[in-house]
């Protein structure tokens, strides 16, 4: 699923990342537990989370995750935005809950990791 489709389905706004570079992601994973995310072997995924802090951006960097979707109106801090820009991480913000965002994306074809 293209980033542009993820934005459309979840009514998300783009916080970091270049919308021109419309990456195609295969799978999604929803979690607030960073050490759980760090056990994943997949890379080409969207991480949907309610956790909005610097550790999220670090985790994405180490796990080679290209895009994160902050659920339920959680906002990225200036420190997060700075680090995400350095690492070319795409951060999106959606007003939807993790449940709703995950459900909508899943039913539109973004596959599960497990």
């Amino acid at each position, binding site marked *: 699923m293209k980033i542009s489709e993820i934005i459309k389905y979840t009514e998300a706004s783009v916080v970091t990342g270049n919308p021109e570079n419309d990456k195609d992601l295969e799978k999604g994973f929803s979690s*607030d*537990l*960073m*050490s*759980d995310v*760090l*056990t994943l072997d997949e*890379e080409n995924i969207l991480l949907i989370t309610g*956790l909005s*802090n*610097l*550790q*999220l951006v*670090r*985790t994405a*960097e*180490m*796990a*080679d995750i290209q895009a994160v979707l902050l659920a339920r109106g959680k906002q990225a801090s200036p*420190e997060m935005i700075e680090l995400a820009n350095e690492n070319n991480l795409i951060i999106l913000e959606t007003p939807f809950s993790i449940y709703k965002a995950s459900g909508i994306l899943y039913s539109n074809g973004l596959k599960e990791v497990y």
Partner: protein
Amino acid sequence: MALELVFQIEGGDFSNAGKASSQIKKVLKQLNIDTRIIKRVVVAVYEAEVNVAAHAHRGQVKALFGETEVEVVVTDQGPGIENIEQAMQPGYSTASKEVREMGFGAGMGLSNIAKNTDNLHIESEVGKGTILTFRCNYS
């Protein structure tokens, strides 16, 4: 070749945990190591850094980049680990509420370090600290 990098970590300082793994990632990229291997190394180093921030008073990460592998030693001054076998069990955690709110404390870190590295060795003395040593082959 044998490049050595050393980083300091303070207990409780989550925003700086990740600096060592981030630098190590840059070096490995420059060495043209396979991205899958890089991920294994930096995930292990990051988990170890977070453990120092979450569980110890202060610590140090040392990375030695050799010809065929990278060796990482994470040394900390802290409470130590009384039962290493128990600590290695996935799901076992003594993390505080604050650590959990940061997105950690699932009890997955040590087992994930073991999964991603070769020859993980843990030495710990209660009341003094912990030394974690591991290697990752470049191929």
